[in-house]
């Protein structure tokens, strides 16, 4: 789904001006039905989601639960649904159920959009890995959503080209750098991969692996912004150094040129998440069966940690008159075996629930016929995901990332990578301070 999220996001962003006109009207028609429920008829719930085919999963629920009817309303993704939900909340009209990306949760909670549903779904904790559950609680006793899907980071590489040119699959980032140099020597027209300044989510995941905590809340009720911490700086220096050295490409991902590079084999590896097969199938259609997935390279040999890129949860809005019914649905769709199977099959996501990560439903991706144990390996990697720490103004940090790292990547200067990171820190901190948050810098 993260795949779809990204692509839709790019496309719909362009229609930005149109969105201005739409926000008001769709907010008005997406609201919860106050007049149902009480009169004895079925409870009617509205569910805002951007995932394709989500209505098919809701249909299974509706068949089984005639007293609670869920209607899926298709939305734009990423920042779009976020702005729209916040606007709808202001009008007292937010939908009952909301698909929310993990990094949006603090923003939504800060805008009082998401209700605390701990009393309804608290026992679901055991269904999920700790790092995922921590993201929906924001480190508090409250629960603001039920995890739906996750995107643990992995290392994808062209098995055929690696074999042909005697390249080693890197186990550590040091080996990654060596492989990048070796690849450049063996294939002068190609790069191992690229550093993309348009994908802050990937960079965030890589820093999580290194141990970064971008936003934290202390017990005294104060935020700490730690974007420019030692772990993140290590990651920025590493990638910046390789770009400056000329052994990594510097073009953004998700462009026609990038698709071409993957398809032609001028990018021979990709640091991506578990949903990568779905992207490769459309970006690099000629390379079926040539890729292989391995765990993400580590900072220290023998370690076993990864970060994540993407993923979302199901939350219940504070405007909902049927919070309990909505929470029941949120619980069901993300933990019930039948629902999980439908999410995998129809929506194409990698489920967050631990029991959803094994079993017959997750068959080998059609694009990876050579890797029969794809999802067994994926589940092992997913279990090692580091906890992400998100704050209430992720978008400000992401915009600063795009601009700062864009310039740095273009200039191919390592020093600019680190200065971009400190700009990202100061912009995020200043923005929080200006809004009135109690905040300090790490």
């Amino acid at each position, binding site marked *: 789904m993260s795949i779809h999220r990204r692509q839709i996001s790019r496309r719909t962003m*362009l*229609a*930005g*001006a149109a*969105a201005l006109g739409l926000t008001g009207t769709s907010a008005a028609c997406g609201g919860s039905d106050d007049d149902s429920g009480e009169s004895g008829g079925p409870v009617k719930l509205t569910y805002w989601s951007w995932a394709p085919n989500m209505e098919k999963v809701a249909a299974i629920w509706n068949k089984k639960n005639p007293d609670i009817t869920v209607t899926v309303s298709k939305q734009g993704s990423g920042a779009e649904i976020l*702005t729209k939900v916040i606007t709808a909340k202001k009008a007292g009209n937010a939908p009952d159920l909301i698909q929310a990306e993990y990094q949006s949760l*603090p923003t939504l909670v800060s805008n009082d959009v998401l209700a605390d549903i701990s009393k309804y779904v608290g026992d679901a904790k055991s269904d999920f890995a700790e790092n995922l559950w921590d993201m929906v609680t924001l480190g508090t006793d409250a629960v603001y959503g039920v995890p739906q899907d996750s995107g643990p980071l992995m290392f994808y590489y062209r098995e055929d080209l690696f074999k042909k040119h005697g390249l080693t699959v890197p186990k550590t980032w040091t080996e990654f750098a060596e492989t990048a140099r070796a690849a450049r020597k063996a294939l002068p027209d190609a790069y191992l991969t690229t550093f993309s300044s348009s994908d802050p989510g990937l960079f965030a995941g890589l820093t999580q692996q290194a141990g970064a905590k971008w936003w934290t809340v202390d017990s005294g*009720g104060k935020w700490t912004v730690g974007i420019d911490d030692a772990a993140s700086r290590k990651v920025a220096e590493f990638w910046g150094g390789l770009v400056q050295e000329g052994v990594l490409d510097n073009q953004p991902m998700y462009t*026609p040129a990038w698709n071409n590079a993957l398809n032609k084999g001028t990018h021979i590896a990709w640091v991506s998440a578990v949903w990568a097969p779905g992207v490769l199938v459309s970006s690099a259609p000629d390379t079926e069966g040539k890729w292989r997935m391995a765990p993400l390279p580590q900072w220290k040999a023998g370690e076993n940690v990864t970060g994540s890129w993407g993923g979302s949860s199901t939350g219940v809005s504070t405007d909902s008159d049927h919070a309990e019914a909505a929470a029941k649905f949120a619980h069901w769709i993300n933990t019930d075996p039948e629902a999980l199977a439908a999410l995998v099959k129809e929506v194409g996501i990698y489920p967050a629930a631990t029991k959803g990560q094994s079993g017959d439903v997750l068959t080998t991706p059609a694009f990876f016929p050579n890797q029969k144990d794809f999802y067994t390996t994926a589940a092992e990697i997913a279990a090692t995901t580091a906890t992400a720490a998100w704050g209430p103004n992720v978008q400000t940090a992401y915009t600063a990332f795009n601009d700062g790292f864009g310039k740095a990547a273009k200039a191919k200067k390592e020093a600019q990578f680190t200065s971009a990171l400190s700009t990202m820190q100061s912009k995020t901190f200043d923005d929080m301070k200006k809004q*009135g948050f109690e905040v300090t810098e790490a």
Partner: protein
Amino acid sequence: MTSAPLKGSDRVSVGPLADGTGTAKSVRPSRPRRSGRSAPYWFLVPTLVLFAAFTVIPVGYAVWLSLHKVQVKGIGLGKGAREQVWNGFGNYADVLQDSEFGHSVLRAFGYGLIVIPTMLGLALVFALMLDTPKARSAPFARLAIFLPYAVPGIIAALMWGFLYLPDVSPFYYLLRMFDLPQPDLFDGGNLYLSFANIAVWGGTGFNMIVIYTALRAIPPDIYEAARIDGASSLNIALKIKIPIVMPSLVLTFFFSVIATLQVFTEPMALKPLTNGLSTTWSPLMAIYDSAFLKSDVYGASATAVVLALATFVLSFTLLRISDRYTREDRA
């Protein structure tokens, strides 16, 4: 929209003047006259209601928003963590001090300096050429020049973006084949040319049609008279046609200036393709960023109001200048 009802009210006021003689006036019963007086307002009602609902109220709301901000308390989570408070002109002060917004305005002007003269120059030349009696297959040429305007801006931008990318562009394929230098069209100054090219490609046709229509409205006997006086085609174009279509040129110029300040589609569509384009490249992108990415409708409203005021001031100043210029011309 408003011009039609205004004409209507003019016509009504002509009534009493027309029936000049006093006797006729006293014979007329007063009731139909009173209803006649209110009639124009009834005609105005639909326009006024729509104008209020879709322009006055939203603009007023934006202005109101621009004077407020959200104040977060403490950790800022949960109910009551955010409060909308009065901010006076705080947002405006922020906009005016924001160097990124200032740069985006300068970039828009730089872009306009390339687009407007090129686009209007080409439109004028094409219109004049189509208007010469010797022009062959004029209807086809007219359609061909106009056609790019019918392509939605976003599609045009994506298509050109594709053509600008070295790895997928057929142009670069040819350049490589003949070992010619391959410019980076997304770099620094080239970026302006790349955007301008899309705008000129898409906008020339529309402006050409506006000017061409004005040219067709000129009575042909003027040309006959000029030819009898020995004027060449070039002379007719320079000394008769251009001065007569000047109002159309001024009009297209205004449209272009406003479109320039509002440039959005091209940079937004090309942004994901390159590292060289910031999130706030153009003024509208800066507004989009704060309203739809950062959910700061307050700051975005203030920026939008500043941009709208700047556009008004610019338009009226230019109008004043062109007015004076044409008046002196007449004298």
